[in-house]
């Protein structure tokens, strides 16, 4: 299909050279930090916060907030890409590599289902969270992560569309079989690679 040309439509501003190669197809750069959530923002006090790794109804490992904060954290600068078409470049986060958490349990699972306060879930292949490209982030831009952006802690999986970076995350369920999460059940792609523009089911 040839795309019809929109007379009078033109590029408003050309992304700087450094940005051009960093933008997946169909995305545009924002300098804001938009929020996309399905419901009200949960507020879990840090005294009640835990992060758990579960399998088949059993909790294999749990960290309290102080235990989690004692783990070695990294500062990372990454580009994030939301399925609603904004991308934010060079965002700075501090977080614990998910691999460091998974390494503390003995498992051979192929998939994880991240679960969050408020009932949100999202599914990911284990290889996407264990290869040094996923973090459990608690700081954004040098400040504690704000509740509307997923604080106290959220997943940060920047190589996939940002809904995979579950806000308010409280743990990972280890799975043998892939199981779609929240948005994946409501019409969004099961994997969500922005460079292949996997926005919706079937993309």
């Amino acid at each position, binding site marked *: *299909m040839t*795309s*019809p*040309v*929109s*007379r*009078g*439509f*033109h*590029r*408003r*501003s050309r992304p700087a050279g450094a940005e051009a190669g960093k933008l997946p197809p*169909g995305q*545009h750069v*924002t300098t*804001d*930090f*938009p*929020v*996309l*959530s*399905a*419901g*009200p*923002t*949960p507020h879990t006090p840090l005294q009640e916060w835990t992060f758990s790794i579960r399998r088949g109804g059993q909790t294999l490992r749990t960290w309290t907030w102080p235990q989690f904060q004692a783990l070695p954290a990294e500062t990372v600068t990454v580009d994030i890409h939301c399925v*609603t*078409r904004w991308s934010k470049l060079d965002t700075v986060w501090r977080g614990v590599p998910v691999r460091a958490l998974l390494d503390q349990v003995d498992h051979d699972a192929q998939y994880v289902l991240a679960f969050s306060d*408020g*009932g949100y879930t999202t599914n990911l292949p284990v290889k996407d969270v264990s290869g040094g490209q996923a973090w459990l982030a608690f700081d954004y831009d040098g400040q504690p992560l*704000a509740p*509307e*952006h997923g604080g106290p802690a959220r997943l940060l999986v920047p190589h996939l569309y940002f809904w995979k970076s579950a806000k308010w995350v409280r743990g990972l369920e280890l799975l043998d079989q892939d199981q779609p999460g*929240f*948005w994946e*059940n*409501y*019409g969004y792609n099961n994997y969500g690679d922005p460079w292949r523009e996997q926005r*919706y*089911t*079937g*993309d």
Partner: protein
Amino acid sequence: MARTAVHGRLSWQVATVGAVTEETDSVRTIALDLPDWPGHRAGQHLDVRLTAEDGYSAERSYSIASADGEPVAITVERLDDGEVSPYLTRELRPGDQMEVRGPIGNWFTWGPHDGGPLLLIAGGSGVVPLRAILRHRQRSGSTVPVRLLYSSRSLADVIYREELDQWSAEVRYTLTRSQPSGWGGFSGRVDEAMLARVAWPASQRPLAFICGPTPFVEAVAELLVARHYPASRVKTERFGGA
């Protein structure tokens, strides 16, 4: 026809622009003639792709403003520093063509079987998907009780005003920046006192839909949770920077 899941890939198709309606100084509704539309649920959105003469293209998502069975329409607010919305609200004319795919999103949607009572709360152009819900409710003959609380800067900024004015029992406005003399509606931001008068009691198991700018949605959702609305019955859609 309502669908609960999207199967297969959503293909781009060429839409022809039908009627264009100026809603306010900065907002217009654009009817789209689509050769292959599978129907949609109220609250869903669609993607638009514009292509320039030099091959540059840009994509955006817009809420569908119409009910299923009506001509598909989007309502677009002009953001002066935007790339696509100034084109859609200023340059686009009936008969023009552009690419569209959809419908998209199965969460922020309502159909008669979802029940209610319905509480719809809109900030600015967040009224668009809620208007689709109102129209779908009416067209489907649903008797689910509904209330819409719509926050706008001024009366001149109210989108769909003629249409909404006909729903005098169901629609309440609040104007945050300026009110005409003799204004009988609410003034100022949505607050607890306003919700005490508009929101269904939690005991009636209401279903709430909130759409608007992020700070608006955050504030209203918190007020509803404080009124003991279960979080699972408060559906939100946010736009704009935080």
